[in-house]
């Protein structure tokens, strides 16, 4: 195994810790969920090498299962031409040479790709044949002939079993009990107590002294360890009493376990990966202490030391019980020999590839039974080359290629229909680039040619640490790669300060009561008291909340609004140029005039919104509200670091409305007309509600225009909800948009709803360019839409800025979804139903298990795992220049973790950044779109109504009307 050495290359343990920290899950406490590439450590390698190596390290699947791809082929999701194209790429000029049964290599591989040839046990195979569910059961004669032929040999060479990476795997192979069962039982309880962010009522004693010392101290006080791990408790107590460092303990344990120096690194990495959820959280806290609310000073070395102390003793015990050597090399050899000796050899398993090829060739059983030895050997050679993972890789490329063709063809088809925007639109809407906003943007544009929409990364260029009215501390609202330099606070307006103070007191009193009853009801006497007093209330609450989720919640909200309305607030957004008011975190509160103007001007330039301003520009951040959903934050805005973008939208609008800022912006080359007004808003993607900010400041000249915009948005959100409902099985197909809105409102407020929304599920494309490239195209909520106008961009400055933000954020989301859907059990966190919130860190399964990272099954179940297809309206040269300047973008594009397509701003010619082949290095190759016409519909609803599957692009004519001279209301 090749290694990426850290700065500690001399010391194998340090090197292992460094490497493990890269591979372990990098997810912080789940309250703030930031999408990232699950295998970020492998991004330095090409996509296929990276996923394969990463997956094999974690015993995961790198791609979908072959069966899923075959089903996709059968259903037409992958077309024959895509498969053939990718196979030809794979085989190069050897594709046409004959192999056996007068079939070319291409045909042999096609047969191997499309047939079930992966059975690993003969019993299962027999069952499948008997049940009549596979090929051999339909052509018994040919199957029997193939089996007879294979019985005569030569046998197929099977890949060697992998040497067990740890004692545990060797012991399991040799029939011993699983030591991890006991060790993990101990560690899970200790780790969740140690890392707990405030869920338990009692705190692990000596927690501030580190994990190793805290556990040692527990044992010193006489607490025993599980029987099977004894005397690890005495070891640990002794180590801590002698003040040994964790590092010394690791060395002692490694030598007791007989791990030789050359094996230490891989052994330690494998050991740390075996309880990777908790180990990952320890490592995360060690690298990002700011994530750790209770400051435990976590260290991966401490964790390793405790783990090895327990592991050592139980391994010694099990080895003694079974008469096995403890020394790792010797034990591993025993297990390996055992695995070789017991490897299943069965002619029926060999016969599968032969059957597949013969069946496709359509030859007689006799010819198969008499197949010459050389031809059989040739087949074995091919089937060895076409290993499972190779076939998956080829299938995956074909799977992506088909979708890519579909999208690029659609873009080419749309181009002649593209419309010029009106000279003065009646309203403009700036959304986040998020693909979930695609439908609502389309719904706006379908209403009138006078409505324009834009997409910008949802922090709208104003990175800040934001503290809302009732937040306890400021939190970063910016993409994770950006560290905000400013703080912005929300505070009540002057006239409502008294009410705010009173409301705050009431609020904290109510919360204190809630906390006390919550804690008390879990205690002994408090539990008895609250059973008698609160039991009936709880019963009534449960009944109402379960039977009428939407109604009960709305009633509650309106009572609260009536009794204790939230005071009117404003943002502390600007500060004097000279005065730097430092907050407790040493950051200035508010922006200086220049800083504000820079941000506003840059964002407008990014958008390409530098002329033709509408009277009202609505800027919408987004967030998501749902209940009983530990993964709620994963539905929030990725560009705001897993938080809600409403504050950013509000701040941007507030700054852009200030006269002083406008003057400074004009100096930077963007003239905002006096009769243009920006309105900030928050779009809730779960219940499709829209909440506007600071409407009290709306000037009277903008009121009429705002009414138009708000009415359009009101209609669009219902249509968007309607389109979303097509994916929900519990939403009737006959819903009207108004009913659909009620349906999504109920979903977001339902305690039992594991799918309040589908989040980023189905994301696939990112289009960076003018909206005319995509306006009027039904993209099925699968496209990140980033506004970028190459005609106003000088020296690719804007392009560089956009790609630096969109590349990593988009790729992070797309790859997180990719991995969580190809292997939901390893990369994702499995089904939500048995999830149990632990330590405010994340979820475990059931009563005791590892922390589960990644996305739950319910969030990815309809996802098509593909790399993000990034389509940029810029020349190939511009793209290469920008990528060369930004290493992160270069890595994503060059190693093909995203698929990049350039669309020429003037000609519309498309180039795809293709993989290297035997003929040429990786680089842009022209894409020639097909001219099959695209279906055209009047409205989106016409295209999607009654269909719940993924939909191909279509032209939506109503969004392509040109503005009449009088404008449209």
């Amino acid at each position, binding site marked *: 195994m090749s290694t990426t050495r850290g700065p500690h290359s001399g010391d194998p343990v340090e090197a292992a810790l460094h490497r493990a920290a890269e591979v372990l899950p990098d997810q912080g406490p789940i309250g703030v969920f930031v999408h990232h590439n699950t295998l970020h450590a492998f991004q330095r390698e090409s996509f296929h090498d990276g996923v394969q190596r990463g997956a094999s390290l974690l015993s995961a699947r790198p791609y979908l299962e072959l069966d899923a791809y075959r089903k996709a082929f059968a259903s037409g999701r992958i077309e024959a031409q895509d498969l053939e194209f990718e196979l030809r790429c794979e085989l190069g000029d050897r594709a046409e040479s004959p192999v056996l049964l007068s079939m070319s290599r291409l045909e042999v591989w096609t047969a191997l790709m499309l047939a079930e040839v992966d059975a690993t046990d003969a019993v299962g195979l027999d069952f499948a044949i008997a049940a009549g569910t596979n090929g051999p059961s339909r052509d018994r004669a040919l199957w029997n002939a193939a089996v007879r032929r294979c019985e005569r040999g030569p046998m197929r060479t099977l890949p060697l079993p992998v040497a067990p990476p740890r004692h545990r795997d060797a012991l399991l192979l040799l029939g011993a009990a699983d030591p991890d069962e006991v060790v993990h039982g101990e560690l899970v*309880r*200790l780790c*969740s107590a140690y890392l707990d962010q*405030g*869920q*338990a*009522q*009692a705190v*692990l*004693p*000596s927690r501030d002294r580190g994990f190793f010392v805290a556990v040692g*101290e*527990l044992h010193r*006080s*006489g*607490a025993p360890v*599980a*029987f099977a791990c004894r005397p690890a408790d005495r070891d640990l107590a002794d180590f801590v009493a002698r003040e040994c460092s964790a590092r010394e303990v690791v060395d002692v344990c490694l030598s007791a376990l007989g791990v030789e120096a050359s094996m230490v690194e891989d052994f330690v990495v494998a050991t740390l990966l075996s309880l990777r959820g908790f180990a990952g959280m320890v490592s995360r806290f060690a690298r990002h202490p700011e994530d750790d609310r209770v400051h435990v000073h976590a260290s991966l070395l401490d964790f390793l030391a405790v783990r090895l102390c327990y592991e050592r003793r139980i391994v010694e015990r099990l080895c003694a019980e079974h008469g096995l050597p403890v020394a790792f090399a010797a034990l591993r050899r025993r297990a390996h020999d055992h695995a070789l000796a017991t490897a299943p050899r069965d002619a029926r398993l060999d016969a599968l590839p032969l059957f597949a090829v013969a069946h496709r060739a359509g030859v007689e059983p006799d010819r198969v039974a008499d197949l010459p030895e050389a031809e059989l050997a040739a087949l074995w050679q091919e089937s060895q080359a076409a290993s499972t993972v190779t076939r998956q890789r080829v299938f995956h490329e074909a799977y992506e290629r088909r979708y890519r063709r579909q999208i690029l063809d659609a873009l080419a088809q749309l181009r002649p229909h593209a419309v010029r925007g009106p000279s003065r639109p009646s309203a403009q809407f700036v959304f986040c680039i998020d693909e979930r906003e695609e439908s609502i943007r389309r719904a706006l544009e379908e209403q009138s040619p006078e409505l324009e929409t834009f997409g910008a990364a949802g922090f709208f260029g104003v990175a800040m640490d934001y503290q809302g009215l009732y937040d*306890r501390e400021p939190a970063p609202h910016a993409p994770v790669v950006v560290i905000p330099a400013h703080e912005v606070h929300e505070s009540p307006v002057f006239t409502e300060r008294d009410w705010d103070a009173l409301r705050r007191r009431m609020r904290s009193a109510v*919360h204190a009561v*809630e*906390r006390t009853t*919550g*804690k008390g009801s*879990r*205690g*002994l006497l408090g*539990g*008895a008291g609250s*059973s*008698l007093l*609160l*039991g009936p209330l*709880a*019963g009534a609450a*449960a009944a109402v909340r*379960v039977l009428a989720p939407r109604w009960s919640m709305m009633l509650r909200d309106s009572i609260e609004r009536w009794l204790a309305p939230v005071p009117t607030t404003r943002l502390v957004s600007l500060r004097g140029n000279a005065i730097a008011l430092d907050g407790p975190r040493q950051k200035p509160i508010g922006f200086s005039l220049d800083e504000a103007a820079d941000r506003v001007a840059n964002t407008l330039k990014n958008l390409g919104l530098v002329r033709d301003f509408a009277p009202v520009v609505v800027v919408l951040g987004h967030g998501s509200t749902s*209940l*009983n*959903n*530990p993964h709620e934050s994963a539905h929030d805005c990725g560009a705001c670091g897993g938080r809600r973008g409403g504050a950013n939208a509000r701040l941007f609008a507030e700054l852009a409305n200030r006269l002083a800022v406008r003057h400074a912006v004009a100096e930077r080359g963007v003239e905002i007309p006096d009769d243009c007004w920006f309105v900030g808003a928050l779009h809730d993607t779960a219940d499709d509600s829209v909440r506007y900010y600071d409407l009290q400041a709306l000037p009277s000249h903008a009121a009429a225009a705002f009414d138009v915009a708000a009415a359009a948005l009101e209609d669009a959100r219902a249509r968007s909800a309607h389109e979303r409902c097509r994916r929900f*099985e*519990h939403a009737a197909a006959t819903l009207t948009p108004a009913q659909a809105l009620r349906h999504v409102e109920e979903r977001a407020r*339902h*305690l*039992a709803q594991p*799918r309040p929304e589908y989040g980023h599920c189905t994301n696939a494309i990112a289009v960076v360019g003018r909206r005319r490239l995509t306006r009027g195209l039904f993209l099925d909520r699968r496209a990140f839409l980033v506004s970028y106008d190459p005609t106003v961009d000088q020296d690719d400055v804007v392009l560089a800025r956009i790609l630096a933000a969109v590349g990593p954020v988009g790729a992070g989301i797309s790859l997180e979804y990719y991995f969580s859907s190809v292997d939901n059990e390893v990369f994702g966190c499995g089904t*939500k*139903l*048995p999830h*149990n*919130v*632990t*330590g*405010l860190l994340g979820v475990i399964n*059931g*009563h005791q*298990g590892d922390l589960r990272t990644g996305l739950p099954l*319910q969030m990815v*179940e309809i996802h098509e795992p593909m790399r993000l297809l990034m389509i940029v309206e810029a020349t190939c040269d511009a793209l290469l220049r920008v990528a060369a300047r930004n290493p992160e973008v270069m890595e994503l594009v060059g190693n093909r973790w995203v698929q990049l397509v350039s669309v020429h701003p003037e000609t519309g010619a498309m180039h795809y950044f293709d993989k290297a082949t035997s003929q040429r290095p990786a680089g842009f190759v022209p894409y020639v779109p097909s001219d099959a016409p695209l279906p055209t519909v009047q409205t989106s609803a016409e295209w999607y109504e009654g269909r719940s599957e993924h939909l191909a692009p279509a032209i939506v004519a109503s969004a392509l009307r040109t503005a009449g001279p009088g404008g449209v209301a």
Partner: protein
Amino acid sequence: MSELLDLVPGCLVATIAAPGAAVVCVALIALASRERTSERVALVLVGIALAVSLAASAIVALAASGLFGPGVEGEVDFGAWLSVGSYEVPAVLLVDTPAVVFSLLAAALTALVARFSKTYLHREPGFVRFYVLLGMFAAGTQLVAFAGALDLMFAGWELLGWSSALFIGFFHERAEPARSSVRAFTTYRICDIGFLLAIVATHELIGSTRIAALPAVALLPTSVTTAIAAMFLFSALGKSAQLPFSGWLPRAMEGPTPSSALFYGGVSVHAGLYLLLRVWPMLEAAPAVEFVGVAIGLSTAVYATLVARTNSDAKGTLAHATLAQVGLMLAEICAGYRELALLHLTGHALLRVWQYLRAPNAIHDAHRIGHEHVVPSFLSSSRPHLAKRLYAAALHRWRLDERLDRAIAPVLGLARWIDVTERRLAAFVRAGDDSRTNDRRGQDPRGGAS
């Protein structure tokens, strides 16, 4: 209001039979069709049955409340369920306050959880199985609630146990739920021995297993009633996860959240207490058992409270908090405060079901209402060593499971020895058989030819 009274026997049967019939229907449909049964089928059939069961239970409750004419109370006889010689299991249902309360509570909570799960379990491959188990559970609890004879109650008791164990193992593709399910099931079976023996003994001694006939035990010698009451207590301890059988309850959190709510917050965990309420005359005649019950109940309460304090997972904390209250209720019952216990039980079930259903909201709530500042306890400042030891013991739940395992290890060893010996014997016999067969084959002319 004699119409209401006339309805009572029918309603009593309906509470039990409706869910039972729905289970049978869904099972038959699932068996008959080759395709997977749709969510809708299970939902509609079980849903209607639970609604009928709830309505019937409510009618019985109304009739028993005495608000409409004289309150209904006493036995309703349906003849014999089965009879073997002189022994017969009477099909008799008994209406009294505990029965009505328990039945109504169980029916309402089951219906609520069924509605919750319609959304929660949507698209889950085990959806139909979930509803079948829910129906089975409903039939079981209603039978337990209204059974007028101990043997009839035992039938319901078993349905309850089976559905509980199967719910714990609901996600059987993973190892941990399967292990936990087996542990709960084993605990139930071992403790059921107590119930069975007690039924037989009761029948032998007073000639009937009717609950209404139980007061007759007051005439028996104290030593006899003590032995029988101890057996009932033993069986209640397992079902209600009292010490030393508390280990299975946290493990039961492996099931989907709504089933955890219904079983281990709401109904099933209280079934042991209900049994003791039913056989109260027996307990009353055995003061020693009452004393032991109070002691076990209080120690469980203390144990579970301490464990709950160290638990950092939402469902585990709730499981132990529930256990503590069940311990208290056991003490209440054994101390003779039966009405208080019934009130406590009802309020507690409602509270816990709500808390379980909201358990996944823990992070949301913590963000909203903020964190409690943990203050060091008195013990940790005055006796830090003891505090650490106590903490570790609570964190590892006094290693109850491990201790139980080691306690029964000799029994298992014996069983394994018997198994190995039997196999060897069988192999020995077969070897003899084989050699004889081979001899015969040797004489076969065709064998010689090949």
